[in-house]
């Protein structure tokens, strides 16, 4: 397998076609609507279930006196999220803090899959299935569908709270008279529409872009060992790969946390803007 094929193989989802046309498109390597990215769905559901499982387990063992190490850690995460909600969200809405916490933890865990060695899980999957060319993309956030779906949910909430807090008339007024005043109504409508559509787009594309680029760098570093470390050259290239991988891993740990944090905070800020009355 050449370097290009190696990268392409790692960046291809394990897809299930829902009809014959979709299967035909997948076979040709094209994108199609009627298809499910099984690996993305499986890993994101598993990680979501992990959060629910750990939270439920911890909820049963809560100690009020001297909490243990893990409870302390979870409490500090909760405190961190609630501080951010207090800072960035005006007013009070009991939905925002749990939503922000869910987004932060889920996105962080999905991003964390990037730190698992790139060939490990696909190799194990190929061993289990017996198919040496089976596709498995382990990081759900490197599949544009995941960030876009999350951003679409946030967008739906933004629209809901805009209409709930400003009223339908206030919401329509926002489209008609913002930002250039009452003499440019057609331009205002288009401009506000663009502004609203850009919110979920920027949320999704930022997360996807950062994670995809990070995954690609991991793949390129992995290729050092795969292509150059032959015979005596391995004495030079293999340690270099290990050092580069460690360096990028430490840096990427910061990136995944920052991306989860930005996704959470921008959700709070956008929902806060939807709550502000004109």
């Amino acid at each position, binding site marked *: 397998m050449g370097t290009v094929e190696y990268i392409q193989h790692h960046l291809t989802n394990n897809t299930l076609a829902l009809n014959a046309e979709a299967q035909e498109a997948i076979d040709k390597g094209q994108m199609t609507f009627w298809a499910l990215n099984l690996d993305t769905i499986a890993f994101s559901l598993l990680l979501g279930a992990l959060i629910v499982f750990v939270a439920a387990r911890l909820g049963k063992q809560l100690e009020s006196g001297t909490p243990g190490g893990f409870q302390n850690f979870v409490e500090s995460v909760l405190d961190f999220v609630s501080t951010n909600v207090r800072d*960035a969200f005006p007013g009070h809405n009991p939905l925002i803090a749990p939503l922000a916490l869910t987004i932060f933890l889920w996105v962080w865990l999905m991003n964390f899959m990037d730190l698992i060695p790139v060939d490990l899980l696909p190799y194990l999957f190929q061993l289990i299935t017996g198919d040496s060319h089976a596709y498995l993309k382990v990081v759900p956030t490197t599949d544009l569908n995941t960030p876009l779906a999350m951003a679409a949910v946030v967008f739906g909430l933004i629209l809901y709270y805009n209409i709930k807090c400003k009223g339908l008339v206030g919401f329509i007024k926002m489209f008609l008279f913002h930002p250039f005043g009452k003499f440019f109504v057609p331009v205002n409508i*288009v401009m506000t529409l663009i*502004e609203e*559509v*850009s919110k979920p787009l920027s949320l999704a594309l*930022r997360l996807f872009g950062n994670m995809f680029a990070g995954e690609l760098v991991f793949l390129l570093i992995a290729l050092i060992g795969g292509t150059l470390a032959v015979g005596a050259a391995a004495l030079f290239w293999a340690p270099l790969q290990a050092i580069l991988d460690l360096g990028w891993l430490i840096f990427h740990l910061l990136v995944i946390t920052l991306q989860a944090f*930005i996704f959470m905070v921008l959700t709070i*800020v956008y929902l806060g803007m939807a709550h502000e009355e004109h």
Partner: protein
Amino acid sequence: MKEESVPESAEMSSRKNKPALNFLLLSAGSMFTSMIIAGFLVGYVIDLLFDTMPIFLLSCGVLGFIGGMMKVHKLLEKMSLLDTGKAKPTESETSKHD
């Protein structure tokens, strides 16, 4: 006494406004690009609806660019307010302008 109390309250207020604002500033770049993309997207849909390709595609792209510039400018304006230690105008001040 009055002179001392004004900068202190301004500093407190700017500190209070800072966190959320900084997070928005972090995303200024992607906000700008996504405004342009959203512009082309909205234009493309309008063109599909009215069969006028590429009039709205181009004009909405330009509008997205202008809107992106305006958004980033608005954000940076707030940042310069923080840098000089001046607080964001209070709600009563903004309502006067409106």
